[in-house]
């Protein structure tokens, strides 16, 4: 635990990424198994369980400190783990020896629910503030020390002197604390065999299309496969002799939430597509899908009223064979063959739009903009192999234009990490009669400079405080952009925005001229 905490401190404060990699490499060389494997899991974000809830941490702290002082401290520090790390009473006598990282993980894995809180308190009491911070971040899986999973894998590759691609391929089939991986990297065992593991494969992603990309595509549309961009969630279906699963685009296993899809999956392979609500071949809106996403285990009634399906658009494995190196047009043939072998209502082939010139492309885009189940077009180079990550110039998304509304900023809250000294999270609202009703929250879309100005404005116009939240004078208009508006019973305003962000700050516009709730409701499709 001591070494892990020191590693985190060093990584946290070091800015250069090559220095960070050097620090991690040194740690891997000096730390035994299984501690180093847990550290890798913590850094790469692959720990499978939470030790304790944030709420538990807060409750523990509140039983030891005045709630107002806690609130003021939190407001200043901007982050619960760090606040608690400093506030927790220090040990009065020589503290007991620290557990190893593995002992810590094992203890929380085995402890019964009722005893989690007491166990956490015991550990916090023998630790220094940086160690407490490390434990709290680790335990709530909120560790951010400016190191991506990708660079963790690079360090592992350097450590074992193997290409990073080999680590990537193995990655999702292995689990913390990665004993087999280290045994291989140390040259003690052969490379782990994952050919039949039911596991997630890293996906290929697209770039937003730019004007010059569009010009190039319009000039030679026959070199591109053009499809609708569906408004669902990206999934990967895996099926082989050892089992089957549905993964989200980040590799989370979401099979349990979609038993209806899983039971229709039987042909071996790995396919890629968009999960949607499909009723008799018709695609429902994202809002309908939201009903399913909110449920970890759907009820029978929900399964019947909101059946899920997958619009398939790519394939990584046909039966046993890896087809990622083939070009998209060849993969499409494999995909069609796969669908023919797995004929079920849940699986549809994403249609290829017949587009041979610029005009047809424009027309397809306009048509997509009017279709509520679609959020634009996907433009994929026919010659593209399936490459994990976001390769340049291969796949583009051409999303329909964002919707806009003028809303009034009502509340502000400090951000986290680097932004913890700025008010960077804004709740905004629109008019209903002479009252403002909040319709959403945004914390992106502005430059650092604009953030400073907003922060300054908020400090000068704060009228009240509820814990970390500042209420402000209802005087500043934000032009907010969002992808869609859905009806919502959870919000007082009756609407929910999809992906809201700050588009422009309207310093010039009086609050009274912001939009009305009716105007926002008219944007619902």
């Amino acid at each position: 635990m001591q070494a892990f905490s020191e590693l985190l401190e060093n990584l946290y404060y070091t800015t250069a990424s090559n220095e960070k990699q050097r620090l991690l490499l040194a740690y891997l060389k000096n730390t035994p198994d299984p501690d180093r494997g847990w550290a890798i899991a913590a850094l790469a974000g692959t720990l499978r369980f939470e030790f304790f809830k944030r709420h538990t941490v807060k409750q523990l702290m509140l039983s030891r400190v005045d709630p107002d002082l806690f609130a003021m401290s939190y407001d200043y520090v901007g982050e619960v783990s760090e606040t608690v790390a400093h506030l927790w009473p220090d040990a009065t006598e020589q503290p007991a020896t620290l557990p190893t990282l593995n002992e810590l993980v094992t203890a929380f894995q085995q402890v019964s629910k009722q005893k989690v809180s007491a166990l956490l308190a015991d550990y916090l009491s023998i630790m220094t503030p940086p160690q407490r911070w490390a434990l709290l971040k680790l335990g709530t899986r909120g560790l951010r020390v400016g190191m991506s999973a990708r660079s963790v894998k690079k360090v592992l590759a350097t450590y074992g002197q193997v290409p990073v691609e080999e680590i990537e391929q193995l990655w999702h089939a292995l689990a913390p604390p990665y004993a087999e991986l280290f045994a291989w990297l140390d040259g003690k065992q052969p490379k782990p065999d994952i050919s039949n593991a039911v596991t997630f494969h890293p996906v290929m992603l697209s770039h937003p299309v730019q004007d010059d990309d569009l010009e190039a595509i319009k000039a030679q549309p026959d070199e591109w496969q053009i499809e609708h961009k569906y408004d669902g969630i990206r999934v990967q279906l895996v099926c082989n002799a050892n089992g089957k699963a549905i993964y989200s685009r980040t590799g989370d296993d979401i099979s349990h939430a979609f038993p209806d899809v899983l039971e229709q999956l039987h042909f071996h392979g790995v396919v890629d597509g968009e999960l949607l609500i499909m009723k008799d071949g018709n695609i429902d809106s994202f809002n309908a899908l939201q009903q399913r996403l909110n449920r970890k285990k759907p009820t029978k009634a929900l399964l019947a009223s909101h059946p899920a399906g997958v619009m398939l658009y790519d394939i990584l494995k046909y039966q046993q064979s890896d087809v990622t190196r083939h070009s998209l047009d060849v993969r499409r043939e494999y995909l069609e063959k796969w669908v023919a072998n797995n004929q079920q209502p849940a699986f549809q082939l994403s249609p290829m739009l017949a587009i041979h010139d610029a005009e047809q492309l424009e027309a397809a885009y306009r048509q997509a903009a009017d279709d509520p189940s679609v959020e634009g077009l996907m433009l994929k180079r026919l010659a593209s192999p399936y490459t994990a990550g976001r390769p340049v110039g291969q796949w583009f998304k051409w999303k329909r234009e964002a919707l806009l509304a003028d809303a009034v900023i009502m509340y502000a809250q400090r951000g986290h990490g680097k932004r913890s000294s700025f008010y960077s999270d804004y709740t905004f609202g629109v008019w209903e009669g002479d009252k403002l009703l909040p319709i959403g929250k945004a914390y992106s879309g502005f430059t650092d400079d604009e953030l400073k100005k907003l922060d300054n404005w908020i400090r000068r116009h704060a009228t009240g405080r509820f814990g970390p939240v500042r209420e402000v004078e209802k005087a500043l208009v934000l032009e907010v952009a969002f992808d869609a508006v859905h009806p919502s019973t959870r919000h007082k305003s009756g609407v929910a925005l999809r992906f809201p962000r700050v588009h422009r700050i309207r310093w010039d516009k009086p609050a009274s001229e912001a939009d009305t709730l009716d105007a926002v409701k008219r944007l619902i499709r």
Partner: protein
Amino acid sequence: MDASQWLHKQPQGLYCEPADCYIDPLHPVEHALITHAHADHAIGGHQSVTATASTLAIMQTRYGEDMAGSTQAVNYREQITLGSPNDPVTCVFYPAGHILGSAQILLCYRGTRVVISGDYKRQSDPTCLPFKPVPCDVFITEATFALPVFKHPSIEQEMAKLLDSLAVFPERCHLVGVYALGKCQRVILALRAIGYTSPIYLHGAQRKLCDLYERQGIELGELIDVAEVSDKQSLAGNIVLAPPSALSDRWSRTLPNVRRAMASGWMQIRARAKQRQVELPLVVSDHCDWQALLDTIEEVNPNEVWITHGREDALLHALTQQGRTAQALSMVGYESDTQD
């Protein structure tokens, strides 16, 4: 007589009416009492200044010999009389433990005793006399670090961190941001105290005050101006002290493979250290942390506490909970990010 009737907050600073003088005024005034020479308490241009001899000497070093129309040096614990002889205000300076020459000012009028503590700390500091608790009716305190998250470790522990880093990164020049007055000299002495005898290198802005400290009998060991080092590469593995503002400016780029450190009480908060791109935060403060503030008020045990500036909400809350009478003066202009 109720202190609030003769001691008021004004835009220039605290004003003592029967003595017709300001304490730590932020604008030039006729008569100023100065607790200590930090720039947010001591400015040049007053007609007359009363302060300790060390404070006056620092002010003269910073603002020139003619920094005030006239000066009056007082010794600690020496009683002086201000205002009308028939209805006088008596005034005594007591050590505040903050920096060289720093003082708390006791004002006594018609039997009411008010202590203006200025900036103060309770940790030991070989560059100045320790804080003296002075019984009073009203204790006026700052609240710079008045949140229970603030716990200042010992300076020895923090300097050991710096030396550890030097051992781990011998190829990197350790550039430490320290405020030129007080923090700089205290850091040097703490390094010497834990056995660091190598020369310590100085940014030009640190030199004058280090010389002054030495003239006041505080030995700092071998100090070399960075400007005088012809081969800057030789600074790898050495300690350079510079004002915080120089940490990431053009000047710092002449140093080899810089590892940025900073000695300040704010360094305890991660986001603050990150904002300044500090890789090695050293928590060194010349102020009280939360517990020291509460302990001091307990020890002084005044009838009333006035809080000048800082995190006054939290201190006010804690004192009120203890059943004390306290109020926030919310004075602006007395807090700077870098010297705390």
